C-alpha cells in the first residue's frame, strides 16, 4: 500500500470532496498561491480558482463568520484558522454563533461548517503559536471536535467532517504534517465517535490522541522489551467520544494512563479520567494516571519547550507507576 504525508492526505480529502460537491469552498489566510501555512492546499487555487479558494485578509472572526453565513445559505465551507491560538480572535463567531445557531433557531438554520486549524508545541514558535486548546471547544455544546493523528485518519475524518451537517472543529498538529502513513487509493471515510486501537495490548490502556499517539507508541515499544503490554486507544474524535472503546479496553487491562500535550488543569484528559473513574471504578486496579503538558505558556527556548510537553520517558514512567512496577 502506498504511503503519503499527513498534509498530502488533507489535500487529497479536500480535492475529492471539492470534486464531488460544488458547494464546498475554502476560505482562510494565505491559502491562495501560498498554499496554506503548511502547504496542505498547494495548487488548489489553480485547480478551483479564487471563487472556491478564497484567500482572505487577516480577519479571523470574519473567516469563521463568512463560513457560518455561507453554511446557513446552502454552501459547505471549510474555514481555516492558521493556528489554534488565533481562534481567540474568532471566539464569538465559533462559540456564540456557530456552536449555537442550529439548536438556538430550532433547527431553522443548519450550519455545515468545518473550521480547520492546528496546534501543538515543538517548533520553537513560543507561547502564542504552540498551544493545545482543544478543551475549550470540547467544553462547548454544539461543536464536534476532531483530532486525527495519522494520514489515514486525517483523510477519512476530514471527508466526514465536510459531509457533516454540523460545526466541526478540525484540529491538526503542526509536528505531524510531514509524517507518512498508509492511505489507500480507494475512497473511504471514517465515522465520528469510533476510536482506533493504534496498538493492541493487555496490561495497560493508554488513551491518547494527536501527536501524543506517536510518543505513546514509542513508549509502548520500549515497555514491550520489558514485558509490559500496552494497548493504545486513539479516540480520533473528542466530540463525539467513543467511551465504549475506552471502557472495553480498561475492562481488559484494568489500568489507564491518559496522555495529552495540553496542560492538565481543566483538560480533556482530566474529564476522561473523571468519566472512567465514575463509570468504571471497579474495573481499575490503580488510580488513573494523566501525563500532560506543564501548566505554563509554551517557552521559546528549545530545552524549556521540550520540558513543557510529555515525552516517551514520561509515558514509560507513568505506565510503570500505574502498574506498581
Amino acid at each position, binding site marked *: 500500500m502506498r504511503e503519503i504525508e499527513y498534509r498530502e492526505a488533507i489535500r487529497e480529502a479536500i480535492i475529492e470532496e471539492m470534486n464531488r460537491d460544488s458547494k464546498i469552498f475554502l476560505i482562510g489566510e494565505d491559502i491562495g498561491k501560498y498554499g496554506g501555512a503548511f502547504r496542505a492546499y498547494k495548487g488548489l487555487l489553480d485547480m478551483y480558482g479564487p471563487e472556491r479558494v478564497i484567500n482572505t485578509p487577516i480577519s479571523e472572526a470574519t473567516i469563521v463568520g463568512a463560513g457560518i453565513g455561507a453554511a446557513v445559505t446552502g454552501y459547505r465551507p471549510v474555514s481555516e484558522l492558521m493556528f489554534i491560538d488565533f481562534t481567540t480572535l474568532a471566539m464569538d463567531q465559533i462559540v456564540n454563533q456557530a456552536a449555537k445557531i442550529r439548536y438556538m433557531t430550532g433547527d*431553522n438554520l443548519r450550519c455545515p461548517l468545518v473550521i480547520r486549524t492546528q496546534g501543538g508545541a515543538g517548533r520553537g514558535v513560543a507561547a502564542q503559536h504552540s498551544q493545545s486548546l482543544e478543551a475549550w471547544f470540547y467544553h462547548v455544546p454544539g461543536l464536534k471536535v476532531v483530532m486525527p493523528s495519522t494520514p489515514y485518519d486525517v483523510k477519512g475524518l476530514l471527508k466526514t467532517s465536510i459531509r457533516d451537517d454540523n460545526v466541526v472543529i478540525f484540529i491538526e498538529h503542526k509536528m505531524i504534517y510531514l509524517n507518512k502513513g498508509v492511505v489507500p487509493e480507494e475512497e473511504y471515510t471514517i465515522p465520528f465517535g469510533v476510536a482506533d486501537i493504534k496498538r493492541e495490548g493487555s496490561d495497560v490502556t493508554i488513551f491518547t490522541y494527536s501527536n501524543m499517539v506517536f510518543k505513546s507508541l514509542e513508549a509502548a515499544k520500549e515497555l514491550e522489551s520489558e514485558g509490559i503490554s500496552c494497548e493504545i486507544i486513539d479516540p480520533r474524535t473528542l466530540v463525539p467520544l467513543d467511551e465504549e472503546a475506552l471502557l472495553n479496553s480498561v475492562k481488559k487491562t484494568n489500568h489507564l494512563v491518559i496522555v495529552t500535550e495540553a496542560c492538565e488543569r481543566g483538560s480533556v484528559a482530566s474529564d476522561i479520567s473523571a468519566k472512567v473513574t465514575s463509570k468504571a471504578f471497579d474495573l481499575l486496579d490503580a488510580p488513573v494516571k494523566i501525563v500532560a503538558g506543564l501548566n505554563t505558556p509554551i517557552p521559546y527556548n528549545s530545552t524549556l519547550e521540550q520540558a513543557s510537553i510529555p515525552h516517551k520517558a514520561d509515558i514509560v514512567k507513568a505506565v510503570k507507576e500505574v502498574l506498581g512496577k
Partner: protein
Amino acid sequence: MAVLTKELKKDLLKTIIKIRRFEEKTIQLYQIAKIWGYLHPYIGEEAIAAGACAAISKSDYIISTHRGHGHSIAKGADLNRMMAELLGKATGYCKGRGGSMHIADTELGMLGANGIVGGGIPISVGAGFSCKMEGKGRVAVCFFSDGATNNGVFHEALNMAAIFSLPVIYLCENNMYAISMCSDDAIACRDVAKRSAAYDIPGVIVDGTDPEAVYNIVSKAVQRARSGKGPSLIEAKTYRFGGHHPNDPAEYRDKSEAEYYKKEKDPVVNYKAKLLEEKVISPEEIDGYEKEIIQMVEQSVKFAEESPEPSLEQFLEEVRSI
C-alpha cells in the same frame, strides 16, 4: 429604480403600524412576565425595517440584531410564530429555544436576530459570498446598530465585503444609544457613514424615520449590489423611543430629547399624515389597517398562549445528540 407606487406606500404604512402594535403588545406582556428574559423593542425605528425590506425580495437575505422584531415582521414573518417564540412555546420560530433575540427562518431568508452586538456582521459576509457564488442576483441586507460599528468585526467584515465586491447592504440603525452610551461620545467620526471611506464603498446618511427615504436609498444600494458593484454602507439616523429594554427608564438621556423625537419624528404618526396629505389613503382605510393589525396581534397572543410548551422529554432526548 423601483417606483414608489400607491400600493407600495400603503404597504410601507401597514408594515410600520404592524411593527408598532406588535411591539406595544410585547411590552405589555413583558410587564406581566408572560415574556421574560430580555426584550428590546423597535419602537421609533420601524421605518428602517419597513423601507429596507420593501426594497428587496423574498429570496434575499437579512441579518438582524438583538432589536430584531421589526426586521422579521418587515421580511414577512408570521406574527403567530413570532409571539409563540416570545412566549417560549413549541410552535415558535425556534421551538421556544431562542426567544426574542434569536428568531430566524430560512424560508424568509431571515438569517437570525443576534444576542451579540455586531455578531451578525461577519455572518453577512458569508451570505454575501453565497449570493455571489450562486450568481442569481440575490443580495443580503445586514442590519446593525451604531454600537456595533465600534466593534472590530464591523471593520473586518466591511473590508472583506468590499475587497470581494460582495452584494451586501450594510444598514446601520443609528438610534443614538448603545444601552446608555451616546453615539456622539462613542464614534470618533460621529457619522457612521463616514467610515465607508476606509473601505472605498458608498456611505450615505438617510432619515431613518422616513420609510420612503429608506426605501429609495436601499433600492439604490440593492441595484448596485445586484449588478456586481459590491457593498454599500447606509446610516439611517433614528431614535430609540424607549430605554434599552422596557425596564430601562433611560435616565442617562435628556427628557426633552426623547420628547422631541416622539413629537416630531414618530414614523407612524408622520407617515400616516404624509399619506393622508398626499391622498394616497383615507382616514377610514387607516382605521381599517389599525383594526386588522390589532386583531392580528391579539390573535398571535391567543395562538401563543394556547400553544404547547416544548416537550421536556424531547429536550432531554435532543441534549444527548448535541
